[in-house]
């Protein structure tokens, strides 16, 4: 038995040693787990905490409402309208097909639309809404809502779309919005949101940043498959700022009702350069860009000779014709190559070498001074003045009046135009001839000016200040500079010379013999308008035609001259200025001046109503 006891003892000792060894090993392994946990939770804890945040927090941008565009009276000319769309959430319906079937009985769905929806439903997670139909009408929306019990899984989502209540009337000024293209991406993450729109033309484009606002963000807690569990934090975006423009929508509409294709009209406040109306016919409906325009529509717009997408008031380039003569006269006076009273004899033509330059009046005007030369629009007088002063000084004067320079109008696509100089011609490798100077003395030749520039020239003549045309009155409620005449520096032009030109322009409209006498403002208005007609040939008239007693009305329409008229009123305290260009209107006095008169009457009626007649003896007496 002793052996057994010893044996038992030995076995037990072995067991004890080995059990302790195993226990030690297990303790060591527990220690390993503890260090492992310490490493994960303490040493690398911060890194994993960040990863966990990224895991569960998804930041989504909330598009801010785009700022509105208001006219000078506060009327909304570009706003946001609710847009209803129908969405389908697959997990909320047992049978997607049946739901779509019921839906198409309320709002018909084309075969390809159904195919697209079913494809998207398959591709996305079942709780992600799929757009069934965008741009529902109010009536469609109402019918879907009424039938909601039969349409499991269908949701109505309310978004906003840009809306232009004035349709095509202000399209050229306000512009339009469209989905951003690659080149629009300026690093603003907002632009990557689906459904976002950016300004593509006009004020919408110029004030894009102010109108766009800043994106808000919502932090959402999401689970592993991307389902939103709850909202953690919401940072509201900054709403786009409203932009108030100086245009009067009602005046604009009234003017557009009077004009035909190819005509552009600019009405400006003569005191500060605010653009009150800017019409270019034909126009287009900017609302169509919202939902994406069809290729056919785009082709029609871009290939049309009437160029509806182009704002001719700032992008149409015309020779100024006789409306330019004030510049030549002022240049001559400033250069002291002529005095106001100096008379030039007009026999109806001027010969230079063997070239004969005609006056528009075949019989000539006889002796004319500056005032009557403007009043009668005598060509020979200005041939002579141009000859004396030279093209470069004429161009310099024109530039001071805003012609051929960038006026900084808030309309992308506004053209700078061209006032030729000797150097410009030489840069083309051609010499500048004296004959060219004569032609340019009456506003013909290489000039390329926009109606806006002509209106600006008129304002500057009227005020004697370097007024810039502008459209923006206020952004986000803050008034912009430039609303006062005093905001603009004086033009460095003799006031005496300017006054002479203004009086001559008054005579054009109000004195017998003036080229626009028939377009003087109605006496009831009690206001006199000063103006200047212009007619620019689009085709050369040959001597042969001239001698055969050629009449311009015989020409096909597209060969007829353009008709221009610039005006300001009242002549002694200028309040409004306008420029009218009627393409192929035949003559400034016949087509442009009467239109300018109507525009002026309309504008004064709306913007400066005559003071109400005083109630006589209202206080009893």
């Amino acid at each position, binding site marked *: 038995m002793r052996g057994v006891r010893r044996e038992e003892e030995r076995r037990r000792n*072995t067991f004890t040693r080995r*059990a302790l060894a195993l*226990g030690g090993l*297990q303790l060591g392994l527990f220690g*390993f787990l503890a260090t492992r946990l310490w490493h*994960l939770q303490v040493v690398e*804890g911060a*890194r994993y*905490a960040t990863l966990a945040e990224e*895991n569960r927090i998804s930041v989504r941008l909330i598009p801010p409402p785009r700022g509105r565009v208001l006219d000078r009276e506060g009327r909304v000319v570009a706003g946001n309208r609710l847009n209803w769309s129908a969405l389908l959430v697959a997990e909320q319906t047992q049978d997607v097909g049946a739901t779509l079937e019921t839906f198409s009985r309320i709002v018909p769905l084309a075969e390809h639309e159904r195919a697209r929806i079913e494809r998207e439903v398959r591709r996305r997670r079942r709780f992600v809404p799929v757009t069934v139909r965008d741009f529902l009408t109010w009536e469609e929306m109402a019918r879907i809502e009424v039938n909601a019990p039969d349409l499991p899984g269908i949701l109505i989502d309310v978004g906003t779309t840009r809306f232009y209540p004035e349709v095509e009337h202000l399209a050229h000024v306000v512009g339009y919005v469209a989905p951003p293209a690659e080149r629009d991406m300026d690093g603003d993450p907002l632009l990557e949101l689906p459904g976002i729109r950016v300004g593509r033309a006009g004020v919408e484009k110029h004030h894009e940043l102010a109108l766009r606002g800043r994106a808000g963000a919502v932090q959402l807690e999401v689970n592993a498959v991307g389902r939103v569990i709850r909202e953690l934090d919401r940072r509201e975006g900054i709403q786009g700022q409203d932009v108030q423009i100086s245009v009067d929508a009602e005046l604009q509409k009234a003017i557009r009702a009077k004009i035909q294709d190819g005509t552009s009209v600019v009405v400006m406040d003569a005191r500060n350069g605010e653009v009150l109306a800017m019409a270019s016919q034909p126009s287009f409906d900017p609302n169509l860009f919202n939902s994406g325009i069809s290729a056919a529509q785009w082709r029609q717009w871009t290939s049309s000779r009437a160029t509806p997408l182009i704002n001719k008031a700032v992008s149409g380039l015309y020779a100024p014709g006789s409306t330019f003569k004030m510049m030549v006269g002022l240049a001559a006076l400033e250069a002291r190559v002529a005095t106001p009273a100096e008379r030039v004899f007009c026999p109806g033509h001027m010969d230079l070498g063997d070239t004969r330059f005609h006056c528009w009046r075949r019989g000539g005007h006889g002796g004319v001074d500056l005032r009557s030369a403007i009043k009668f629009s005598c060509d020979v007088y200005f041939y002579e003045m141009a000859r004396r002063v030279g093209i470069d000084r004429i161009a310099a004067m024109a530039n001071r009046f805003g012609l051929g320079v960038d006026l900084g109008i808030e309309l992308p696509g506004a053209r700078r135009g061209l006032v030729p100089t000797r150097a410009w011609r030489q840069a083309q490798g051609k010499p500048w001839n004296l004959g060219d100077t004569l032609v340019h003395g009456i506003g013909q030749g290489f000039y390329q000016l926009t109606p806006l520039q002509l209106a600006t020239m008129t304002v500057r003549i009227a005020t004697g200040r370097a007024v810039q045309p502008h459209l923006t009155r206020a952004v986000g409620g803050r008034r912009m500079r430039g609303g006062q005449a005093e905001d603009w520096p004086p033009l460095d032009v003799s006031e005496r010379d300017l006054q002479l030109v203004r009086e001559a322009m008054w005579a054009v409209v109000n004195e017998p013999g003036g080229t626009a006498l028939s377009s003087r403002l109605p006496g009831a208005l009690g206001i006199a308008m000063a103006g200047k007609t212009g007619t620019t040939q689009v085709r050369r008239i040959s001597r042969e035609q001239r001698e055969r007693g050629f009449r311009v009305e015989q020409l096909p329409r597209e060969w007829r001259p353009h008709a221009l008229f610039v005006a300001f009123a009242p002549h002694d305290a200028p309040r409004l200025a306008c420029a009218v260009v009627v393409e192929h209107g035949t003559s400034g006095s016949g087509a442009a001046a009467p239109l300018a008169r109507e525009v002026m009457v309309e504008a004064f009626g709306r913007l400066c109503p005559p003071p109400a007649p005083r109630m006589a003896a209202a206080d009893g007496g």
Partner: protein
Amino acid sequence: MSILERRLLTQDRGALVLRKLWQIPWSFVLLLCAIAAVGYVALYSAGGGAPEPYAARHAIRFGFGLVLMLCVALVDIRLIARLSWLSWLGGVALLVLVLVHGSIGKGAQRWIEIGPLQLQPSELMKIVLVMALAAWFQRASWERMGNPLFLIPPAIMVLIPVGLILKQPNLGTALITCMVGAAVFFAAGARLWKFGLGLAGVALAAPIAYQHMHDYQRARITTFLDPESDPLGAGYNIIQSKIALGSGGVWGKGFLQGTQGHLNFLPEKQTDFIFTMLAEEFGLAGALTVLCLLGLVVLFCLLVALRCRHQYGRLLAMGLGTNFFLYVFVNVAMVTGSIPVGGVPLPLISHGGSAMLTTMLGFGLLLSVHVHRDAELGVARD
């Protein structure tokens, strides 16, 4: 037998039961209750802050398990020793049954359904294997342990169930079973060089085994080696688990505040990854506390083994302790990304009925060893 005698006997039996109950170390029972309570808390959180669907059932199962454990604790260890062989046969029979009739879960046949109960025979097998090995070695002297021929039958006793478990296939459990077996061999006094030989054999066999592995098993090993290689595929679990653990920090995010678990980034959060859930919400402090509680259980097993006066009980306690330890270690090492992922739950804490019952059965046996530590059993023979 007179009525009086019978009454005396029953009184005697009643007194015996009472004496045995008195012998049960209630501090250990309390420790188990504490761990189960941790499990309740974790499962309450995994259920989204509600007792349903996990926590309440966990409590009920633990209650049943507790009763089972106490009942087994009262069974005489000599009876248990006698039943060892039969139990082993029963375990192997169940493993065969599961291969023939088992339910398929996650690509492997692991369960058989007995009424409402889902039984995972491989869990039970580890316990009955320990019993069988303890029974084989209980009389073996040191000299006898040195005889290689004596070690062949118990080796076969290990390899038969391991082969059947591999067939399911369940590589993780098969390896754990091997290790449990090896631990009993070691504690019984098998010579150390034989373990060296065994390890060398495994090292040689590993590449061949890899060739015969299922794709998902290979994927586990490759994603373990480089979890980032497939962050949304096979590596997803490990990465998400590490993120959850790491983001818990020292003090955790607070009860029910764990984002990873609650937002379903964490897979299997109520079973295999329950420890991650705890560590995320209660931090390193909570994780180490749980680890300490579980370590105390292992320590208790060791103490029971050391105090036992018969070899059967010593080996049984040691084997059961090692089994429990391996559960804990493999699970925690898995969720911390230290070893390849395998479907090993955390005992007493993870959701799951079969594992709870087998664990409590094991503790029942352990307590029985403790209660009957002075029983006359299995004297050493040559």
